[in-house]
């Protein structure tokens, strides 16, 4: 075994979740004695973790559009990736992700980033009003759709 290229690229969690779901589907189609239990366990654990993050209701289209929208802000690949993975909803979280946030990002650009955060308030409303777990899951999905729908619009 030889490692040719240690790091071809960073992968967004959206992409990883998609591949994991495809691999899981392929595994379930196999006969039981052919299935790899270690792989199934690992894929199950990883997809459980990723489904609890904002990535659960994203798709590749959202990610591509997010990259386009954030082009004028001039962020590094790692910063865009973290924004997509974590979906920061406050200025504290943004400052953690973006190095030297106040120096690099001017007021107008910050406002654009903050408008992505404004949907957090809408989401909080849905979340606190929804009492059933299914309602909360629906609230989360609606919020994520809106967050990235804003990006697509």
């Amino acid at each position, binding site marked *: *075994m030889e*490692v040719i290229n*240690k790091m071809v690229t960073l992968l967004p969690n959206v992409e*990883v979740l998609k591949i994991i779901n495809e691999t899981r589907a392929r595994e379930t189609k196999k006969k039981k004695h052919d299935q790899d239990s270690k*792989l199934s366990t690992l894929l199950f654990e990883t997809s459980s973790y990723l489904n609890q993050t904002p990535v659960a209701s994203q798709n590749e289209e959202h990610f591509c559009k997010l990259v386009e929208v954030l082009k004028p802000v001039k962020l590094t690949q790692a910063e865009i990736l973290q924004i997509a993975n974590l979906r920061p909803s406050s200025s504290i979280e943004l400052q953690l992700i973006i190095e030297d946030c106040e120096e690099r990002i001017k007021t107008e650009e910050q406002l654009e980033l903050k408008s992505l955060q404004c949907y957090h*308030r809408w989401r909080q*409303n849905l979340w606190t009003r929804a009492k059933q777990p299914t309602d909360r899951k629906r609230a989360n999905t609606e919020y994520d759709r809106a967050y990235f729908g804003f990006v697509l619009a």
Partner: protein
Amino acid sequence: MFILSEMQDIVAVVPHHFKNQLKETLHNSLNWRFANKVIVDLGLCVCLYDILHVGDMFILACDGRGHVPVRFRFIIFRPFVDEILEAKIVSSTEAGITLSVGFFEDIFIPMHKLPCPNGFEKTEQTWYWAYGQEEGEPPTKLMMEAGSTVRFRVVENIFKDVRPDPNDEPSKNEKSFQVIGQMMESGLGCLTWWNNEGEEDEEEEEDGEEQSANGEEDEDMSAE
């Protein structure tokens, strides 16, 4: 959190798999070989991304298997330094806190990288952040309980080449891949500490809305 790595390996295909599609067999074989294994200085292999190139199959003497050189890309879990991640607290000791992301449980925050000022509750075996209020008031103890989700920044990835010796007990507990993090900056630590900023405003709004909703209900009752 995840990276893509290009690797090359020679896969041995057993004769009873010759009737199957080669790519399918290679897919299964590579996942079986690498998934959930740590490659030193690379990371934890998760699953196969794609196969780039399949070489010509050759046969070795006295071996019925066919050997195929394959170039492929694998999804590797290796958070980069200074990345922000979210994980759940598994356990706390006096040395620090162990976190887990489900598929990987060797994330460690040493005690000197926890939010300051802090303390360790021996009875509950949990760390807490002594959040200083205004002067004169005692600091509130914000506990970091097991099971709660926290945000942390990656400081270092430690790789150790652990020798596979089944008789040696200490080597079984050695970790080949460990992620060290820190929670000293503002915004890091339990998610609930930082989410409360927005929630307080929301509670006020919600109370206002509930009162108006109740007012409407009363009107309906009186109308009936």
